[in-house]
C-alpha cells in the first residue's frame, strides 16, 4: 500500500462547498506536488500553480494528469517573485493551502 492523503476527500469536499471553480482563473500558492490541484483543476478555466520547492514542483510536473495539460501551468516561484511580475485583478480565485 502506498501512502493515501485524504482518501476520505474531506478537504476536497470542504473546498468545493465554498467555491464553484467553473470557468474561473485560479492561482494556487504552495501547490506542492499538485495533490490538491488535481482535485479541482478540471472544473477551472485555467490554473496557475506555484511553489518555491524544486523537488515538489518536479513531482507536480511529473504527476500532471494528461487531461489537465493545457490548462494547468506549474511553476517554481516564491509568491513574492510571482506577484511582483503579475498584473492586478488577474484571478477569480486564489488558493492558499497549507502554506502558512
Amino acid at each position: 500500500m502506498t501512502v493515501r492523503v485524504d482518501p476520505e476527500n474531506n478537504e476536497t469536499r470542504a473546498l468545493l462547498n465554498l467555491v464553484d471553480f467553473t470557468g474561473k482563473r485560479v492561482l494556487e500558492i504552495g501547490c506542492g506536488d499538485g495533490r490538491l490541484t488535481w482535485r479541482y483543476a478540471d472544473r477551472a478555466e485555467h490554473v496557475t500553480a506555484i511553489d518555491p520547492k524544486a523537488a515538489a514542483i518536479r513531482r507536480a510536473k511529473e504527476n500532471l494528469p494528461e487531461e489537465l495539460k493545457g490548462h494547468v501551468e506549474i511553476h517554481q516561484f516564491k509568491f513574492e517573485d510571482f506577484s511582483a511580475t503579475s498584473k492586478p485583478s488577474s484571478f477569480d480565485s486564489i488558493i492558499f493551502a497549507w502554506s502558512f
Partner: protein
Amino acid sequence: MVHALEEVQRLLKSTGRLIDIQPLIEAPLLQVHKENRVVFVEPDPSYDYEEDLKQADAALTHVIKRGLLVIEERSEFDFLTHGSSAQELLAFWDKASADDDISEDLAEQRIKEVYARVEEIRQAAGQGAEVALHERGRILRLKPNARNDEPP
C-alpha cells in the same frame, strides 16, 4: 505574511475570492487504525510549527482589521494521511520536505523513536492495522474589499 496577503488582494478580481486552508493550531495525532477503529493515539512528535501558525493567524487578523479582506465562510474538516506502516509515513514526510532545512538533531531522533513505537503498536494490533496522521484543517473563503485601481 501581511505583504503576501496584500498582494493576494491586489491580484484578485473585485469579484474574486481567496480560499485559505490551514491546519488548526493544535498538534496532529498519530493514530493506529484497525478495522475502522482508532486503537492508539499519540500527539505527532514532529509538530513544531505552532508559532508559524499563530503568526499566520495574526497576519490574517491584521489585514481583516484593515478592511482589505472580509471572511464570508468558515468551516473545519478532518484531514487524514494513511500509511501501511509508521516507517512508510515517515518516509513520505521526508520526501515531502525534501527541500526543507531539516536538522539531524535530538528532535529528529525523538520523532524516529515515537514512530518506531507506533509501528510496534501497529504490528501488535494485527493484520490490517495501519497508521494515520490525523490533522484538523480549517478553510476560509474571503472576499476583497473594493480597491481604487479597478473600475467599478
